[in-house]
């Protein structure tokens, strides 16, 4: 059976998905990146190898997410794609009548506007991480609850506390203030969810025409409190697709399936043995000019595979020794 592997290396989580000809994942894995993408990619590959049906033949690999360049070099990707396109493609396929996608991940958030089956506009947070998963996790820790229970508390709230949502730092101090005023925990938590949705809509989604059907995905879509806040804001049901947390990886797999199908190339996939390879990621400062670019390089078994990160392409073009 032909299958295509999609790898989404995000700032907080790493997702791998295996697709065959349909849009239902054959198998998938969801891991915390924990600042160590190389190990997580290797662990993810190993997990997929163990979980997948025996007769599968990998015919294409695509990477996406902020770690896409690194992952692409490591495992031999046929396609390295930005996460906006990957999410859009997956959602359009799984939710055909979608017109707006809210995607909130670990450290960034996006909005994608779709009309008649094509992306017409998108936005991405640029200066502020308010409303992203990392912030929520941090606040849950402060309140001494598990992030998994966050949503449950929010659903129980009846009089949500009004929390300033313009800036995470202010949201945090406002939250502390409300705690000291004696607001119930559930109301603070749901107030925080509302503040984050407000922040998202006023920043990332500013000037975007939001129309139903709306899909909500990314790691934060696990959070029932945020879903409730979205629903109440729009007075309509925001749809959370199945596999919402895997959408980026699914989209990447779909894109590579399309591409390999149309160009007939053989995959550059290095095989599951990659999970046994010793990779070394290092960086150095290029001192050729005062730009002092930080060049990242990845090597396997002492051999440099690729370099990137410079303003000019001096190192990308340099013979890899």
């Amino acid at each position, binding site marked *: 059976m032909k299958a295509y592997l999609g790898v989404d290396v995000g700032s907080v989580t790493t997702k791998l998905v295996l697709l065959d*000809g*349909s*849009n239902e994942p054959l198998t998938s894995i969801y891991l915390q990146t924990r600042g160590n993408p190389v190990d997580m990619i290797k662990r993810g590959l190993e997990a997929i190898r163990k979980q997948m049906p025996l007769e599968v033949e990998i015919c294409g690999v695509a990477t996406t997410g*902020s770690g896409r360049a690194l992952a692409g070099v490591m495992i031999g990707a046929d396609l390295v*794609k*930005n*996460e*906006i*396109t990957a999410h859009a*493609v997956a959602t*359009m*396929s799984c939710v055909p009548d979608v017109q707006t996608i809210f995607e909130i991940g670990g450290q960034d958030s996006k909005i994608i506007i779709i009309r*008649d*089956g*094509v*992306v*017409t*506009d*998108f936005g*991405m947070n*640029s*200066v502020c991480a308010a409303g992203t998963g990392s912030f929520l996790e941090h606040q849950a820790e402060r309140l001494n609850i598990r992030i998994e229970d966050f949503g449950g508390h929010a659903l129980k709230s009846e009089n949500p506390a009004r929390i300033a949502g313009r800036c995470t730092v202010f949201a945090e101090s406002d939250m502390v203030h409300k705690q000291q005023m004696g607001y119930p925990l559930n109301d603070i938590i749901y107030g925080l969810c509302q503040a984050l949705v407000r922040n998202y809509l006023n920043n990332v989604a500013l*000037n975007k025409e939001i129309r139903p059907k709306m899909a909500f995905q990314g790691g934060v879509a696990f959070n029932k409190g945020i879903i409730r806040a979205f629903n109440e804001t729009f007075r309509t049901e925001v749809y959370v697709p199945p596999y919402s947390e895997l959408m980026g990886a699914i989209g990447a797999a*779909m*894109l590579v399936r*399309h591409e390999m*199908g149309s160009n007939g190339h053989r995959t550059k996939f290095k095989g599951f043995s990659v999970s046994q390879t010793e990779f070394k990621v290092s960086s150095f400062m290029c001192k050729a*000019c*005062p*730009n*002092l670019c930080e060049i990242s390089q990845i090597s396997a078994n002492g051999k440099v595979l690729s370099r990137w990160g410079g*303003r000019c*392409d001096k190192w990308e*073009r340099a013979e890899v020794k």
Partner: protein
Amino acid sequence: MRIGIPHLGNAYIMVRAMAARLGAVNGEGLVIPPPMTKKTLDLGVKYSPTEACLPYKLTLGSLIEACELGADTLIQARGTGICRLGYYAKGQEQMLHDLGYDAHFLTLDISHHKFLNMLRLIRSVANGNRARTPLHEIISAFFFGIGKVIALDKIEKVAQKIRAIELEKGAANLVYKEAVKAIDDVFDSKNVKRITKEYIGKLNKLPHNPKADPVKVAIVGEIYVVIEPFANMDIEMELGKLGVEVERTLTLSRWIKYSLFLNYLGISEWREVHKLAEPYLDHDVGGDGWESVGEKVLCARKGYDGVIHLAPFTCMPEIVAQNIMASTKEDIPVLAVACDEQMGREGMLTRVEAFVDLLEFRRRKRDGRKVFSVG
């Protein structure tokens, strides 16, 4: 007197050419600061108010680097009714003074009579170096400098086309870089012409796919961040790597051609663009804001696939333009990119890549092709 200038694209080549004709060579009468790097930016950011815009910070950084190399007379633009550019020179002069540089500013008023002001400026510089320079020498130096800029823009136009369809990515950039150096190194018009022809030929001969029909994107916006690649993180090169053909409506040669000559004949380079902007914005909002709106409309009519709108972060004229551009009825996608020292390269690249995908999918749909096959 040692003249120093801030960098703006290839403008330094023009200045160097004029200076050479008038007897000043690099290091003696003239100081060209090193190409802009992170050091320039760091200097500019350190000694500018936080809320100042990127062009202010970069030109200040560049001028500081010129002063470090011994420049004592600095050239900067000024004007009324433009934007914050009006006070760049004053603010920067004060800062350089505070830093202990005894530099004197010569300002070029670009709001009225640009041609005469420019000649006047060159004359005062020339006479500062020599007793009296005859007017015809000044005029001839001036035209020689302009000739180089026009030549470079011609070569660049070809490079922009080839970059999108070349088979070996990066080849056109290397040829273009060589061309810039070659033009900078010759000091007579005949050689400038020869080199222009030679390098246009070289670019056209690079292995490329002549049948390719690349996505076409126009870059519009504030003049400094549009023209200076350092300010926009080489966005043109990045688009080229993605196989996109870029057209930049603002070029030095266009600005010069109109501002210096045709405007005197009553021909405005922006008349058409302003007219197109009229249904949405019917007056100048400072900077290049009015033009950005009109350019968007023009690009839609000319059949471009998309527009990238570059603006310095906090640039008032472009913020006005950006909001108006969002609501024009011409249907062409616009990607707004705010340029400042906080801009992350990765974030910018992700956006640009996604934008190019968006344009490609739109094209497929327009041509009746399948946007994307599912399953």
